[in-house]
């Protein structure tokens, strides 16, 4: 599974990171690190919860 954080939408609510810190690391601004990255194995459920928690709909998950 891969996650993509859309940096045009992310405004740093950090709900994703609060629920899945290993899946959604932060950048130096304290926002979710933008772009595509692989979801660590075994963290798929956390990745989904983190994506669902984003109030800006900035995160998409895909194969």
């Amino acid at each position, binding site marked *: 599974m891969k996650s993509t954080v859309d940096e045009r939408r992310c405004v740093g*609510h950090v709900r994703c990171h609060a629920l899945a810190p290993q899946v959604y690391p932060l950048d130096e*601004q*304290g926002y979710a690190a933008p772009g595509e990255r692989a979801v660590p194995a075994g963290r798929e459920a956390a990745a989904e919860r983190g994506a669902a928690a984003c109030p800006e709909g900035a995160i998409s998950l895909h194969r």
Partner: protein
Amino acid sequence: MTTFDHYTTGYRDNWQRIADENLARCPVARSDAYGGFWVVSDHASLSRVIRDDETFTSTHNMADPSDPRQGIVIPPNPMLQVPMEFDPPIYNAYRRMLNPYFSPTAARAMEPFVRQAVDAFLDRACASGRIDFVRDLGNPVPALATMRLVGLPLDDWETYAEPMHGIVSFPAGGPEYLRCMAALQQLGGALGALVPRLRTERADGLLSGLCRATVDGKALPDGEVVLIALLVMQGGVDTTTALLANTLWWLDEHPAQREQLAGKPELLEHATEEFLRLFTPVPALARTATKDVTLGDQEIRAGDRVLMSFAAANRDPAVFEDPGTARLDRFPNPHTAFGLGIHRCIGSNFARSWFQLMLRGVLDRMPDHRIDRAAARRNESIGIINGFVDLPATFTPGEPRGVELPR
């Protein structure tokens, strides 16, 4: 046309009903108060307004009161809020400069300080068996933490917190409000006097950082350094207080949930979001339309003022199932209590952390407290902040832990 006026006591006492009625009947409504404005209640329209900063500007033209762009408060704030009342592209440069001071890492680093402050203030009350959760905890802890964040002498916290607290609990433009505004301007003067030294000497805190920061390659003028510091203090000092007070008031009414929360600390993460949704400490803020646009079934004209009711959007049944009910484990919970879009509350990481540390402290150290509901007093007006002035409680006296205030 309605007479929606968010500063009246009628609104304060009936805001949930008013929000629910607006959501059901006129999610985008016209009010004739304060020269006329739109009230946006539904989650979808509010999200659209707050995310479209080109069509709905935050700009506040202080120099020309005939310019309809009068910032994010209705009626307009007499002081410019930098950079909250700026738009992109320049806004983004300010926000990037400020963000690192407010990151989750910064909030975590401050936790020991806040925990110590909570324990010290609870120590002062615990042997007597009486506490006022606003005056003795909810107001001082965020005030002290904000002073620390800004880098001001901690001993002076009362001088700063008093007018900040006053300014949000009285109706905008009224005599008490104006007195607090004058005190605030005086504080601005005191902050300004610190700037020249901080331009050359390095010190801890945001104020010193602002004195050395560049935005778009230029140093910040003295006036902006002061306005940014004042905005952070206004944001920091009373909002978290209001969240704590409303939560304790509600838990006093719901002993089963209180017990649940005390026994299961891991509930607090989701419960915090639910309390933010239900109590929405900052009930509404405004924008100005820059062009004609259709919103819901209403035609908004360029120059119209638009009030975004976060309080109403947080009760929108299209987004929140059974919105009037507190579900401490509600998920997902896309509430708007911190706003949405680029101006999203920069202090949200601190707010969550301070709130949780204060609530934990109360639940741990005063587990049997009862609020004196007859003596509790809400803010006279909740137009700016939905909070309490007094929230007295009694509990079985406990042993102080011997914790001093942090310095």
